C-alpha cells in the first residue's frame, strides 16, 4: 500500500539549510504519526555519507540526526541509484543502523505512487 506523502531530499547537508530543515519536517510529521516516505536523490545522497564531523564547522551533524529516524518510526529510506553512481558513492558505505536502504532505479515510478510530494 502506498503512502500519502513522499519527501524528496536532494540538497547536500551544511551548504544549504534545506537539508536540515527538510529532515526536521520529516521528523515532525513522523512524531505526529503521519510518517512520510523519504527519497534521497541528487546531492541529497551526500547527507547519508558516514564520518561527517560537522563540529569542525560549528554545525550539528545531520548524519546523527538521520540516525534518529528509526526512533521516529522511519525504518526504510529510498536512495536514487543513479545519483549514487554519478557521485561515485558506493551504497555499502551508507548503512544506518535500523534503516533499510532501498536503492531505486525508477524514481519516476516511485514518485507516481504518492498523492503529495514535498521537496527539500
Amino acid at each position, binding site marked *: 500500500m502506498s503512502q500519502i506523502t513522499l519527501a524528496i531530499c536532494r540538497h547536500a547537508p551544511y551548504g544549504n539549510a534545506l537539508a536540515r530543515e527538510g529532515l526536521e519536517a520529516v521528523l515532525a510529521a513522523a512524531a505526529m504519526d503521519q510518517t512520510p516516505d523519504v527519497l534521497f536523490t541528487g*546531492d541529497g545522497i551526500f547527507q547519508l555519507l558516514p564520518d561527517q564531523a560537522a563540529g569542525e564547522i560549528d554545525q550539528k551533524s545531520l548524519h546523527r540526526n538521520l540516525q534518529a529516524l528509526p526512533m521516529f518510526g522511519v525504518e526504510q529510506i529510498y536512495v536514487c541509484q*543513479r545519483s549514487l553512481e554519478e557521485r561515485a558513492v558506493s551504497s555499502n558505505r551508507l548503512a544506518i543502523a535500523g534503516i533499510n536502504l532501498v536503492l531505486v532505479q525508477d524514481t*519516476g515510478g516511485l514518485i*507516481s505512487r504518492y*498523492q*503529495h*510530494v514535498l521537496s527539500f
Partner: protein
Amino acid sequence: MTLHIVNQSPYRTSALRDCLDAMADGDALLLIEDGVYAAGAPTGIAPIPAGTYCLQADAVARGITPAKSITLIDDERWIALCVEHTPIVSWF
C-alpha cells in the same frame, strides 16, 4: 500522472536534469522562472521532451522565445495542470 515544475536555469543547477531523470511516461513538465531558459534553443545539456509547458509570462519577461514544440501557458492553465495531475513535484 505527475506534474514536474522546474524553476532553475539548466546552466546553473542540476534541477532540470534530475527532473528529467525522474520523469515517467505520461508525466508533464512545466518550466517557470529561470527554468524557462531551457525552453529556448536546444541547450545541449538536456533535450526537453515534446509537450513541455512553459509559463509564458516568465519567458516573455526574460526575452526568451520558446521552441515550437513547447506549449506556452498562463497561470490559469497552470492551475488546471495542477488539478489534472498528482503528485506535483518542484525541482529547485
